[in-house]
């Protein structure tokens, strides 16, 4: 067996096809302002932002074992930083978004050192406490409207682009860019040395630790990177909404519950899962949203059933069935067919 000609590679036919198709889809999406209507662009922009949020949450929960129910802390923080940096700092919104990301990562450092003391499920609730502390603190800031919130001044909105369609195209492209960036960061991170460590931790934390992986440090880096990027997304989200209030900015339903559903239904611990999950989530929302509370109950039931019956989600099911990876992370051995004979 051992002298059979074989090759070891990450890539596969499916992955190469997916790469070409992905590039084509991105080109078509970039051109959306020339072929899509205003409402469709808004919807797609929102979809991209959820895709980015879901990819980052999946990196934390699916790979680093950091199940957070408090990422709304960074969405809200980023949103508020956009308002603070543009209104008081006089920054251009695009720079303010980058600044929100940096500040989000910086504040994630002390937060991580504190809540990493909590294990497993308690960590999850600890993140929620942090989000509450952020919400209550921003509600105290009267300069940003206190509990009732504030709106982005017209001048700042205009500085983005002078025409309305220009602004809409720009925020659409930024949302698309955010989704592509988030997936790329996750993909590259997982293919790096650190990604190998992460996968090892996911599979067996004890074994990973005994092989010399610094578990705390690895998780810490993931948490800070994911939180910084989530803060950038928050800034983008509230640049589209133009209005911020503590309850909207730190909503556990909007920024965490939906994101968790997306990842669980699509397939946790896979890069492709959040993409599928986002598409399913938006398809459900566009068809069932009129049902109001019933829609959310259905969503909850679907998530529970998926978790119990198919814990790897839709994508996990597909992988098990057809053994394909579109964004390859694993190496595989391909034995050359002709040598077998």
């Amino acid at each position, binding site marked *: 067996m051992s002298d059979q000609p074989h090759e070891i590679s990450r890539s596969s036919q499916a992955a190469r096809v997916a790469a070409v198709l992905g590039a084509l889809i991105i080109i078509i999406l970039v051109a959306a302002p020339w072929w899509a209507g205003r409402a469709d662009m808004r919807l797609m922009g929102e979809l991209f932002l959820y895709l980015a949020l879901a990819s980052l949450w999946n990196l934390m929960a699916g790979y680093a*074992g950091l*199940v957070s129910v408090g990422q709304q802390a960074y969405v809200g923080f980023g949103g508020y930083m956009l308002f603070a940096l543009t209104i008081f700092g006089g920054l251009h919104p695009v720079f303010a978004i980058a600044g929100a990301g940096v500040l989000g990562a910086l504040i994630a450092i002390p937060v991580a050192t504190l809540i990493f*003391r909590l294990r497993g499920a308690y960590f999850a609730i600890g993140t929620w406490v942090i989000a509450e502390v952020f919400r209550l603190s921003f509600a105290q800031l009267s300069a940003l409207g206190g509990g009732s919130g504030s709106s982005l001044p017209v001048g700042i909105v205009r500085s983005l682009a002078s025409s309305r369609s220009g602004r809409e195209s720009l925020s659409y492209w930024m949302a698309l860019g955010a989704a592509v960036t988030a997936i790329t960061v996750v993909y590259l991170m997982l293919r790096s040395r650190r990604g190998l460590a992460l996968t090892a931790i996911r599979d067996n934390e004890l074994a990973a630790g005994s092989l010399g992986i610094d578990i705390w440090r690895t998780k810490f880096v993931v948490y800070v990177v994911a939180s910084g990027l989530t803060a950038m997304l928050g800034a983008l989200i509230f640049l589209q909404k133009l209005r911020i209030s503590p309850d909207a900015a730190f909503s556990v339903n909007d920024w965490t519950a939906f994101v968790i559903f997306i990842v669980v239904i699509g397939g946790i611990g896979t890069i492709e899962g959040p993409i599928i999950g986002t598409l399913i989530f938006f398809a459900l929302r566009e068809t069932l949203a009129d049902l109001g509370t*019933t829609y959310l109950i259905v969503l909850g039931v679907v*998530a529970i059933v998926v978790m119990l019956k198919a814990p790897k989600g839709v994508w996990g099911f597909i992988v098990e069935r057809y053994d394909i990876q579109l964004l390859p992370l694993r190496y595989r051995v391909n034995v050359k067919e002709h040598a077998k004979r």
Partner: protein
Amino acid sequence: MDWVNAVVQGTLLGGLYALFAAGLSLIFGVMRLVNIAHGDLIVLGAYLGLTVVMATGLHPLLALVFVVPTMAAIGYVLQRGILNKTLGDDILPPLLVTFGLSVILQNLFLEGYTADPQKMNAGALETASVSVGGLSLGVLPLLTFGIAIFVIASLQFIFYRTPLGRSFRAVSDNQEIAQLMGLNKRHIFGLAMALALAVTAIAGILLGIRTSFDPTAGGARLIYGFEAVIIGGLGNLWGTLVGGVILGVAQTVGAKIDPGWQLLAGHIAFLVVLAIRPNGLFPRVSG
């Protein structure tokens, strides 16, 4: 005197928080399950109480006679029907399933009871007070605190003095060996959840008499209960009472400084304890 008053009122409030926490602490102790829907189950207790009061005209405290067994039954069925399937080495399934449960419960409340805040009317009990050494203490907060002590003492007794408690401790220590000794862990877990939700029912009714509640009130209650558990130390029931009191006092003293600081002060007290003593003040088991 105002400050003494704030501390005393906060202590009594802590009794309610300890009741929020006791069920959480119990199920964590027995099966290492952290129930994200715990707060919503507290609110479920309050809504069930409201329904009984409206249907029968009973006093809310008497409604406990119906609500406690109902909640216990719900707990047993929930555990055996759904939650037992999630238990294992992986923490994700229980966390995400109870999270889904939380969303379902909140929306069922919305469907059944609308988004309007509701409150149970306990008549004269709500405003009655006794005067102790210049302080005016509400009878309801005193009663709540007394019930909290009684509930925690009972749980302590069940845990360490009864055959049921012995099986709780056995499955908690080692599930496989407990099974070999003839215990059915699925049944034991069901009983633990039933007991936890019985306590939750009491907490829910007292919550519903003390303040108004709405479908989304659960999240904050989960967080208070969780903070009380962590401050007191995992697995220590009396510690949980102390944790609840610390949280309550932090909130009332915070509110005294500035009304906007009430909730924030409680969370900050929790974070300070976490920074100084990560295992809580009186830890008994390691997380």
